[in-house]
C-alpha cells in the first residue's frame, strides 16, 4: 500500500490532534479530516481547555497518567516556544479548593503539573468557606486558537479538510482505506455506542482581564479559568441532558457561584453563554476494529469518549490512535501481499 488513504471523522481537539499524529507517524499516508463542524462550532470550542485530568473509572490509572504526561510535555514545549501565542497555549497558576477533605491528598497528576503543593493558611483566607486547597501551575489550550493552529499544521502537511456530515462509516469505504472515528458525542449515533452519554456543561465566557489566577472548586462544579482574551466561568455537569440551549437560570447561578469565589467578577463585561455536551464514557475508547459487510472489510480506529478530560489527554490518545492506524496499515499490507500470492 503506497499511500494509505485515511479519513479522520471529527474536527474537535481529538480529531485534529489524531490527524496530526497520523501525519507524523505515517508520512506516506494521505489524510483527510471530515466533519460537519469545525472551530469555532465544536464541543472543544466551548471547553476552557485546562490541563486538569478527569478520572475515567474504567481506564487503568497508569494509562491515564501516561496520556496526561505526554499531553503536558507536548504542550509545555509549545508554550515555551515562539508559537505559543498563535497556538493559544499558555501557563496559568491557581488553586483547587475543597470544602471537605479531598478523597486523595495527592492526585495521580500532581507530579506532572508544575509546583503542586498544599495551599498555605494565608492563601486559604481568600476562600473562607473552603478548608483545604492545592496550588499549582498548569497549561491551558485556548480555543479557537489551538484548533486553528492544528488545522494550519495539518494543511501544511497536505491534509484536506472537508465539511461533510458522515451518517454512516460505510459511506467512506470506497474513498478511504482506514477510517478514524473521533466523533465525540456523534459516536452515539454513528456507531451506536450506548455506553456513551452526554454530560451537559454550560459556561460563561467573560471579559475580566484582571483575573490572572484559576480557581476550581474540587467538586468540579464551580470554576474560573482565565484564557487569553476571556475568562471561562463554570459550570454544570448534567448527566444525560442533550440540550444545547443556554438556560438563563443556570447562567445566573454560575455567575453567582463564581462571584462568591472571586468577587471582582461582578465587574466582568461582555458575557457570552455557551453549552457543550461532554462525550462521556466509563473509559475512553481507543480501539481498533475491522468492520465487515458483504465481504468488504473496513478498518476503523476509534478515539472518542473523553468526557470532561479531552484536552488533558488529547495528545496521548492521539498518539495511541495513530499507532493503531499503523497496525491497520500493516494488516492491510499483510493481507494485500497475501492476495498477490
Amino acid at each position, binding site marked *: 500500500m503506497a499511500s494509505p488513504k485515511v479519513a479522520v471523522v471529527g474536527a474537535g481537539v481529538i480529531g485534529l490532534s489524531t490527524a496530526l499524529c497520523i501525519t507524523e507517524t505515517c508520512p506516506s499516508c494521505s489524510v483527510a479530516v471530515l466533519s460537519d463542524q469545525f472551530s469555532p462550532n465544536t464541543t472543544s470550542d466551548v471547553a476552557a481547555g485546562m490541563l486538569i485530568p478527569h478520572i475515567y473509572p474504567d481506564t487503568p490509572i497508569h494509562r491515564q497518567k501516561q496520556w496526561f504526561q505526554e499531553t503536558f510535555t507536548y504542550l509545555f514545549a509549545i508554550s*515555551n*516556544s*515562539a*508559537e*505559543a*501565542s*498563535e497556538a*493559544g*497555549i*499558555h*501557563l*496559568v*497558576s*491557581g488553586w483547587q479548593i475543597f470544602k471537605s477533605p479531598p478523597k486523595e491528598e495527592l492526585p495521580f497528576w500532581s507530579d506532572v503539573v*508544575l*509546583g503542586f*503543593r498544599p*495551599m*498555605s493558611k*494565608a*492563601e486559604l483566607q*481568600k476562600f473562607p468557606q473552603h478548608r483545604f486547597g492545592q*496550588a499549582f*501551575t498548569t497549561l491551558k489550550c*485556548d480555543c479557537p486558537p489551538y484548533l486553528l493552529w492544528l488545522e494550519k499544521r495539518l494543511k501544511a502537511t497536505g491534509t484536506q479538510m472537508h465539511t461533510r456530515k458522515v451518517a454512516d462509516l460505510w459511506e467512506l469505504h470506497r474513498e478511504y482505506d482506514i477510517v478514524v472515528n473521533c466523533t465525540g458525542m456523534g459516536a452515539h449515533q454513528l456507531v451506536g455506542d450506548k455506553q456513551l452519554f452526554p454530560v451537559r456543561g454550560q459556561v460563561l465566557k467573560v471579559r475580566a*482581564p*484582571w*483575573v*490572572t*489566577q484559576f480557581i476550581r472548586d474540587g467538586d468540579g462544579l464551580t470554576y474560573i479559568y*482565565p484564557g*487569553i*482574551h476571556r475568562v471561562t466561568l463554570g459550570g454544570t455537569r448534567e448527566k444525560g441532558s442533550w440540550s444545547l440551549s443556554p438556560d438563563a437560570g443556570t447562567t445566573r447561578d454560575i455567575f453567582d457561584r463564581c462571584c462568591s469565589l472571586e*468577587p*471582582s467578577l*461582578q*465587574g466582568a463585561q461582555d458575557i457570552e453563554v455557551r453549552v457543550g455536551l461532554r462525550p462521556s464514557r466509563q473509559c475512553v475508547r481507543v480501539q481498533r476494529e475491522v468492520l465487515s459487510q458483504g465481504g468488504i472489510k473496513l478498518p476503523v480506529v476509534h478515539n472518542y469518549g473523553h468526557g470532561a478530560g479531552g484536552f488533558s489527554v488529547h495528545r496521548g490518545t492521539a498518539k495511541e490512535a495513530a499507532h493503531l492506524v499503523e497496525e491497520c496499515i500493516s494488516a492491510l499490507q499483510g493481507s494485500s501481499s497475501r492476495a498477490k500470492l
Partner: protein
Amino acid sequence: MRVAVIGAGVIGLSSALCIQEQFQSLLPSLQLEVYADHFTPHTTSDGAAGLWQPYLSDHGNLQETLWNKETFDHLLGQLHSPAAKEMGLFLISGYNLFREPPPDPSWKNIVLGFRNLTPKELELFPGYSHGWFNTALMLEGRSYLPWLTNRLMQRGVKFFHKKVESFQEVSGDGVDVVLNCSGMRSGDLQPDPELQPGRGQIIRVLAPWVKHFIITHDLKSGIYNSPYVIPGSEFTVLGGIYQHGNWSEENSAKDHKSIWDSCCQLLPALQKAKIVGEWSGLRPARPSVRLERESIRLGNLQAEVIHNYGHGGFGLTIHWGCAMAAARLLGTILQEKKQLATPPGPRL
C-alpha cells in the same frame, strides 16, 4: 487647620487620603489641599507597571520592610471589596529568576505561597539556575490614582494645578503643615544629594497570553537592569533598565533594543506581541526613604514639613505604610499645636 500636600503621585494622594480618613472627623477645621504640576496619567506612578514587590534586600532597613508589609496586608484586605477593580488591584503570581543562588528576600513571608522553583519550572527559563515562585498583587497606578483622586474630591479635598517652587510659597500662605511628596523633584524644594534618578524605560505590548510576572535578576548589575515582563489588565510591560543618575525622560533607541531583545529571549512568543507604547520615567532613588518631620524657619514663621519621598522603584509597594507613618507624624504635630488631645489611630 490647612494641610498642603505637594505631589499627586501615589505617595501624595495616599498620604492625603490617610490623613483625611484619620483626622477629618476629629478635626472639622481640617482643610486638605493637593498641589502638583502633574496629575494622573502623567505621574511617575502612572508609568510603573504596578507590581507589588520590594527590592531583594532591605539592607537592614526593617522599617521599610514593615511599611511594605503594612501596604501588602492593607491591599490584600481590599481585594474582595467592590472597589478592587476600580482601584486596579488584583492578585498575580510569577517568577523571580537568578543565575546564582540568591539569599531569601525580606518579603518572603509577606507575599503568598513563596517557594523555590522546581527543576521542571526552571526548564522554562534556560540560563537561570535558581528562582522563586510566589503570588503577589498588582496595583495599577493608572487606575489607583484616579480612584484616590475621586475619594479625595468626594471628601472635599481641594486640588491645585501648579508647580510649587518653594515651601515658603505654600506655608507662607497660611498653611499649617506641608507634606512634601514631590518624589523626583524634591531636590527643587530642598537640595538632597542622596536623592538621585534611577531612570527606567519600558515597552508596552499586547501579550494577553502571559499570565505571570517574570523578573530576572543579575546580582552584579543591580536591580531592574535585567529583563522583566509584567502583565497588566490592559497591556504587558517589558522592562529592564535602571540607570542611576540619568535624568533623561526621553525614550532611548538603545534601551528599546536592549529591552526587546532580552525579553524576547526570555519569552520567545513575545516576538509576536504588538507594541502599543513606550515610556521613560525617573525612579526617585535614595539609600532610604526620607520620612520625617522638619521644622523650617521661613522668615519669622516656623513651618512644619513632613517629608515623604525617595521611594525609588517601590513606591506602590510601600505607599500605604508610609502614608500611615506620615499621618502619625501629623498627629504629633497637631498634638503639639494643641489641636488634638491625643493622636488618633491605630496600629504600630
